[in-house]
Structure formats: C-alpha cells, structure tokens
C-alpha cells in the first residue's frame, strides 16, 4: 500500500455503533426462542468439605421444574479447564473446593421457579477448615485440595548469574509486595442459551470470549462430536478476560440439559453468581530484590512470585508465564532469577483478567525502582531512562528486537509533556498540612499475543460481492473493544472501499478457522494480519480484472473510494462494483480464507531464554495526585499515558482502550478487592465491591508512539491491556510520593491510607 492511508489512522466511529445506541443490539440474554427454559445452579456454599448426600427430590417436585441435572446425568467427563489434565468439574462432588462450586442445575419454566427449587436442594456437606492462605497451602503438611497437591504450576527464569550480579551491586533494595483479587465486573453478567436443532446439532449462544474453546468443552461434556456443536457469539457486554471458563461451564451444563429435554435452555448469571462462579484476577505475593551500581545501573534482580489461583487451575499456567517474564520490567538487567508459582486454595478460582499477571508484577517492579532511586538519591525518571530497553538490547528472556522498541520515546514524551522534574518540585512546594501532593512515574512493557502460551494462529475471511460490498469474518471476538471496526478499516484500506460498504459478522464457529482465544491483546496484531492477508488475496483478483478492463498491467492500477483507477491517469476510473461483477463472470476468486500464524516462540523451557513474544507494547505513565490526609481520599490531578502501539489504526478506538484500561487500573490500585472471609465472598455486589464511577474518572491523556512492528498489520501492536498496569503502578508511586510512605500492598484504599498515616 502507498501512504497516505485513507482510513488507517483516522478516528472512526464503531461500525456496529448504531445497533448499540438504539437498543437493537441483542446480547445473549436478549435472545428469544419459543419454549425456552431457565436454569439456575445450586452452589456449595462452603469453601471446603465433603459432600455426603445430595437430595434433589423436593426440588424435582417443585412447581415448573422439568429437570434437575446432577453429575450422574452428564454424559461426558464432567470436567473443564484450559490445559490438560483438566481439574474443574461442571458439577462438583464429593470434594468441595470453593464456595461457588455448582452441585446441581435446576431447569424450570421460569427463572423464579428455578431459583425457588434450587433452594430446596438438600446438600449434606461435612465442612473442612478451608485453606485460604497461599503460603499455608504450600506447606508440606497442608491438606491436598487436588490429588497431586496444591502446587498448580511453577516456572523459573534464569538469565546470567544472579549471585555474581548481586556481588557486583553497590546498593540492594528488597521488599515484599501484595496485590488483591480484582473482579472483571463487566456490566453484562455471563449468559448462555443452548438450542437443540432439528438436524441433531446443538447451537449455543454465549456471552463469551473464545468460542472455539467453548465448542470443544461443550462437545466433550455433552458427548457430541465437536462438528455438531455450533457456538455463536452475540453482542457481548464486556469480558476483559473473564468470559472463558465460567461460560464454558454454563454452556456445557445448558447444552447437556437442552439435549436431554429437546428444548432451549438459558442460564443468565445474577451479579452474585458472577462474583461467586466466575474467575477473577490472581492475588499475588511478590518478593523482589534488586541490585544496582551507584551510577544507577541495575545489575541483578531476583523475584519469587506466588499467585493465588483459587480452587482450579484455569489460566494459572499462562499467568505464571507472563508474570515470570514481566517482573524484570522494561529494563536491561543482565542477571536475573525469577521463580513463579501458582497454588490452589479454597477460594474463588483465578483466571484470565486484562493484564494477565503483568499489573501485579509491574506494581512490584515499579515500586522497587522508586525505592532504588531513593536509596541512590537518584531522579526516578533518570533511573528508568538509564536502564531502559532499546533496540539491540536483550530483554529478560534474552530476546533482542531490531525494531519497534519505543520505550525511550514514551519516557521522553511524559517527561516533556509532564514537565518533569519541575512538576515534582511544584507538587512538593506547598505545605498544606491536610492535602499532600505527589507525582508518580511508571515504565512498563507487555508482550503481545500468545508468545510462550501456545501456538498463535488466526483465521479470517474476506468476501467481495458483485455490488462491491465486503463481508469480513474473523475467528477472534468483538468484546466492545472495537475490533470489528479495526478489521473493517484494514479491509477497507486494502480493497479501496469505503467503510460503510464493509460488514464484519459475528463469530460463529461454523464459518471460520479455529483461532484460539481472544486474549493477550492479539486481535489487532495477529487477527488484523489475517484480515490483511485475506484482503490482499481478493485485491489481487480485483487488480487483475481491472487490468483486463483498462488493458493495462495490474501494477498500473490503484483501488480507492469504491473505484479502480490508473495511477498515472486518475481520471480513468471504473466503479469497483463493475470490476467485482466482471471478476465474478470472468472467474476470478472474490473470497479468500486466510490463516495467519505468528512466528512460533522458541526458547529454553528450563530458563525461559529465547524468542518468546512477537512484539512488546512499551509504556510510560506520569500521575499527579492529591491525598486528603483527613479522609484518605485521593484525587488524580494529572495522568499522562504514553504507549508505543506500533501504529494507531483508529485513534478513537485506541484512546477508548487506554482510558478504559487506565480506569480499571485505578480500580485495581485504589478501590477494588474481592473480600473473602472464611472462604466466602463478602462483597458480591456493586454496593460493597466498588468499581470506579463517574466521580473517579481520570484525566488521562494518551501520548502515542508509533514504532512499527513487521508482525502486525500496518505495524500495529495491541493496546487493550498495557495501560492498566502502567496506571496502577504510577498511582501507587504517586500516593507513596505524596505521603512519604511506601505502600507495598494494593489496593491502596482510603482506609489503608489512614491506617498508614496513623503509623
């Protein structure tokens, strides 16, 4: 393509936006099929124990009830998970591993009837003292939550010689950092609707993130071949990593019930169900030690990371990998040793959540960089700059990039725009005894796409009709992040059609190649590449056809504004619809199924040294806060968020991702914590679990850096996750700076601020 671009880089409104603002967009719970039944799971209610007896007789006789599904009624293995061997039963028993374990599914004519009947189920459970502390769960004498013990997954990263590194160090800082459980709190609770079809197939509509993952588990657990299961993703009201496992469980149960009854079965979580029965962010305990020379050069870092995975493994193995690789931060540290483990506890299970381990370790790492700066009497910005990764330098896994490492540019931008260090001097110039100001910095990086987490393939289709309109299909999902719009922009750019001519259909597992999960900020990068490839193939057909029509070589032709025209004589034009019609009648293919595969990760599995991610997003944040020392309330006065995104495809979409992730980062650092007492969630609602509201909105200003990567379409790298970690770390450093107290635990709530001030 020749620059300048027509639609890439332009602020574009969502192509599915009209449906969303008119209420026409249908989410899973909005779908209607005749004869639909409602289902509710009966949950264990104990964090740990042994189920001795489950009596569902009274529930079966309750008005409106048509089925009570128990483990004996499930035709499949009654197991789900991410990595085999799977460890999470759909319906639990006899071992109870957390409060939210489902014991039985009640299916009734109405929701009220299903709920009433669920409460009639008698579950005789012998409670055990729950294992709630991950450190305690690791003791050899601890009760085993799963047969193989309480260690879910452990990995080590070794680079250089960490002992030798520390022996060189002139200054060493060391501390333990803790983060808490954060709920996804998407506004749309999880929902599924399973519809048995007349041809013996099963369709499951699901508010999900990874339809192919669902399809596999539903097939296995209902005993159907995967090819007889179709998963369709309607509009989804937010996911942030959360709508994988919980929805897999719901889809499998609803599917089993629907097949048994020959009627559609729907499960819609209440907000409480969502808090109890879905996956949340891993709480972490991070012990971190960093050694440096007096001139500020970091020479060694050692970390032990313990992630609380809750009752089941879910995505724990991959979160372990990501935390392992990212705890070194965006710095060139020659000597590293990292041990990262996830453990089982009798708590709500942890899984994927926006950032995927990176927010936890970035908070620890960036807090320690500030501690090191204090110890060295060094400017914290200079310290980051001095150790910042650049092109040609080895990162934590020894990987060296020759392009697309924009960290220093992001640091420079926040310095210039934030007027560092003058802003710091100013913040500390006042002497108001009540309101204290502080400025916090953070630098970070986040690997894009699956990397070490598995093969990275995405399927896409592009189809041009004879009228010149375009249909795009992709195996990754739209979750509100605007991926449909970004994919439309990519296709529009290559095919030279206006955006209005493009439709991007909802994901349906019948129509695209299994593309794995929609995670890891990979949609724009790897998914966009697949659309790019499919569109290029169809473009070739159009150019060749136009060449025949112009009697000119294909290279002499350009496409744009729904026209084909000669580069040298732009007055010579043919409407694209005519070219497409002629191409059809001449027999040129107008549809292409492309398959993009990111370069495989290649690394040593013992040391995690090697090529792991196809690219990294780099970022620098600056935040200024004012803390009210009487109430512990924090006001964010300024927030600069700079990220190297490779190439901005849609400024409006990128800003939206940055602002949304930033506010979720503020929630993580300041407000949100799932409280579990004795293994029971105490704040399973929006009154007691506080997500940021209008009052907490941030004055985030996004500063783009565009260091293109060859692995993304037009050079783009994902941006959905990274700002969360940067914001949280900058917030912690800003509050610590304001009060002169090092906070080592998130969230830093007003309550914890007051406690710290009281000493």
């Amino acid at each position, binding site marked *: 393509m020749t620059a300048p671009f027509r639609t890439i880089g332009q*602020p574009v*409104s*969502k192509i599915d*936006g*009209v*449906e*969303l*603002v*008119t*209420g*026409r*967009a*249908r*989410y899973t*719970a*909005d779908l209607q099929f005749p004869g*639909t039944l*409602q289902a509710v799971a009966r949950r264990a209610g104990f964090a740990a124990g042994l189920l001795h007896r489950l009596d569902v007789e009274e529930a079966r006789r309750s*008005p*409106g009830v048509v089925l009570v599904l128990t483990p004996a009624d499930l035709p499949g293995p009654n197991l789900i998970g991410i990595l085999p061997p799977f460890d999470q039963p759909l319906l639990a028993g006899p071992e109870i591993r957390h409060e939210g374990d489902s014991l039985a599914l009640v299916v009734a*004519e*109405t*929701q*009220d*009837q*299903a709920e009433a009947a669920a409460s009639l189920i008698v579950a005789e459970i012998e409670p055990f003292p729950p294992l709630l502390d991950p450190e305690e769960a690791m003791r050899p004498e601890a009760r085993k939550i799963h047969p193989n013990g309480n260690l879910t997954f452990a990995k080590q990263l070794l680079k250089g010689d960490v002992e030798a590194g520390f022996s060189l160090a002139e200054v060493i800082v060391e501390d333990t950092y803790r983060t808490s459980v954060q709920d*996804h*709190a*998407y*506004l*749309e*609770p999880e929902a599924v609707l399973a519809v048995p079809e007349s041809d013996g197939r099963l369709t499951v509509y699901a508010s999900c993130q990874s339809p192919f993952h669902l399809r596999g588990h539903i097939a296995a657990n209902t005993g159907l071949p995967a090819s007889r299961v179709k998963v369709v993703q309607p*509009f*989804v*009201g*937010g996911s*942030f990593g959360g709508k994988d496992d919980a929805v897999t469980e719901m889809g499998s149960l609803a599917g089993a019930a629907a097949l048994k009854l020959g009627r559609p079965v*729907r499960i819609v979580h*209440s*907000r409480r169900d969502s808090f109890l029965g879905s996956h949340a962010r891993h709480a972490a305990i991070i012990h971190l030690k960093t050694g440096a020379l007096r001139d500020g050069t970091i020479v060694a870092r050692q970390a032990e990371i313990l992630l609380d995975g809750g009752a089941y493994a879910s995505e724990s193995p991959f979160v372990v990998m990501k935390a392992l690789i990212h705890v070194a931060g965006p710095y060139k540290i020659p000597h590293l040793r990292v041990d990262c483990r996830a453990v089982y506890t009798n708590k709500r299970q942890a899984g994927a959540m926006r950032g995927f381990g990176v927010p936890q370790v970035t908070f620890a790492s960036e807090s320690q960089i500030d501690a090191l700066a204090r110890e060295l009497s060094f400017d914290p910005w200079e310290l980051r700059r001095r150790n910042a990764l650049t092109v040609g330098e080895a990162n934590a896994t020894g990987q060296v990039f020759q392009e697309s490492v924009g960290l220093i540019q992001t640091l420079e931008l926040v310095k210039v725009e934030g007027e560092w260090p003058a802003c710091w001097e100013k913040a500390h110039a006042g002497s108001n005894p009540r309101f204290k100001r502080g400025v916090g910095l953070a630098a970070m990086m986040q690997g894009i796409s699956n990397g070490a987490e598995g093969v990275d393939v995405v399927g896409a289709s592009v189809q041009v009709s004879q009228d010149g309109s375009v249909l795009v299909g992709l195996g990754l999902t739209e*979750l*509100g992040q*605007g991926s449909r719009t970004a994919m439309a922009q990519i296709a529009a750019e290559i095919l030279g059609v206006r955006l209005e001519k493009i439709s991007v259909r909802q994901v349906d597992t019948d129509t695209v190649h299994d593309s794995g999960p929609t995670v890891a900020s990979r949609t724009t990068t790897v998914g966009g590449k697949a659309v790019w490839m499919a569109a290029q193939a169809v473009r070739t057909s159009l150019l060749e056809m136009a060449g025949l029509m112009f009697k000119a070589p294909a290279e002499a032709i350009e496409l744009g504004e729904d026209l084909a025209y000669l580069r040298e004589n732009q007055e010579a034009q043919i409407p694209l619809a005519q070219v497409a019609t002629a191409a059809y009648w001449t027999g040129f293919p107008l549809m292409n199924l492309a398959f993009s595969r990111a370069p495989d990760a290649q690394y040593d599995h013992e040391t995690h040294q090697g090529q792991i991610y196809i690219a990294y997003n780099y970022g620098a944040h600056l935040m200024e806060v004012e803390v009210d020392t009487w109430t512990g309330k924090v006001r964010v006065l300024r927030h600069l968020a700079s990220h190297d995104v490779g190439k901005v495809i849609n400024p409006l*979409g990128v*800003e*939206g991702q940055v*602002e*949304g992730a930033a*506010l*979720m980062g503020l929630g993580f650092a300041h407000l949100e914590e799932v409280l579990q007492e004795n293994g029971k969630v105490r704040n399973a*609602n*929006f*009154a007691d679990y506080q*997500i*940021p*509201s*209008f*009052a907490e*909105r*941030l004055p985030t200003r996004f500063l783009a850096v565009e260091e293109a990567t060859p692995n993304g379409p037009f050079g783009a790298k994902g941006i959905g996750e990274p700002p969360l970690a940067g914001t949280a770390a900058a917030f912690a450093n800003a509050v610590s700076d304001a009060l002169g107290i090092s906070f080592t635990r998130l969230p830093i709530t007003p309550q914890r601020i007051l406690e710290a001030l009281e000493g």
Partner: protein
Amino acid sequence: MSEINTRGSTSGGTDFKSVPIAFRLNGRPVSACIDGGLRALDLLREGFGLTGVKEGCGRGECGACTILLDGRPVNACLLLAAKLEGCEVLTIEGMASPDGTLHPLQAAFLKAGAVQCGFCTPGMVLAAKSLLDARPNPNEEEIARALSGNFCRCTGYTKIIKAVHLAAEEMRR
C-alpha cells in the same frame, strides 16, 4: 394485551394474579395484565420485547436498566410493573425518530467514542436525556452528577461526558 406473570416466561407460571395496567410506552398507548409482583424490567423486556432495557445487577446499583418515567430516570429493576400505570415510559427503543434518525445524544455517543461494549449505553443515554431536557447547558460536574448512578466498565467515562456536551450543543442549535 400482553399477559405476563413471572420472570423468564410469558406462560406456565403458577400463582397468577392478574392486574390490568395501561400506560404510554415510547409514545404509544399500551396495556397488559400482570402479576402484582412483576418488575417493570421484566414486563418491558419480556412482555414488550424491549431488550434495550438491560439488567446488570438487579439491585439498583448499576443503572443499566434505566428508563424514563414521566421524564425522570428510574431503575426498572427496582420498580414494580404496576407502578407504570398511567405513566409515560421511554426506553432506548423510543429515542430515535420514527424514520430512524438518531437522537442527538445517540449520534453524539457514537461520534465521541462513548460506546464500547454498549451494555451501559441505553441507561446512560436515557439518564443524559433527562438531564438535558431539564438543563440544556450543563457543565462537566452536573453531567457527572446526573449520571453518577450509571456504571460503565469499558470507557473510563470521559468520552461519555464529551458526548453529552456534544449533544447539548447540537440540541441548543
């Protein structure tokens, strides 16, 4: 006339208590026979198919179910359907003109990028309409306060405020 008794179904329940009600819905007169305990949310979604009314919490904590009742925003999840009697009810489905032209607020939400997953959008747009009908030129704080009962987990809120400003400007023209 719709017959609605209990959540999740338009038929087959027990304990059927029939209360006739009549009200105006998105500009048209409607009537229904309902169970006295039915929530307005369920009547609108299941009885009238207005699924733009969303349920995010069912406890009056998120604002996703916001409708306008005689011009005032209320949470349909906490409201008994019987209370709709004699009222003028507006849902998101009634915001655009009959010819499909978007209300300036709807257009502004799109233009400003104030919509991501869209689940909060119907409630936000309606709460904002109520504000703009009463105060055509609100400042940022007034907008934030008027919408404070509505959560959004996707956008970070700033673009929503921008959208309301944009729409206010457009509507004052």
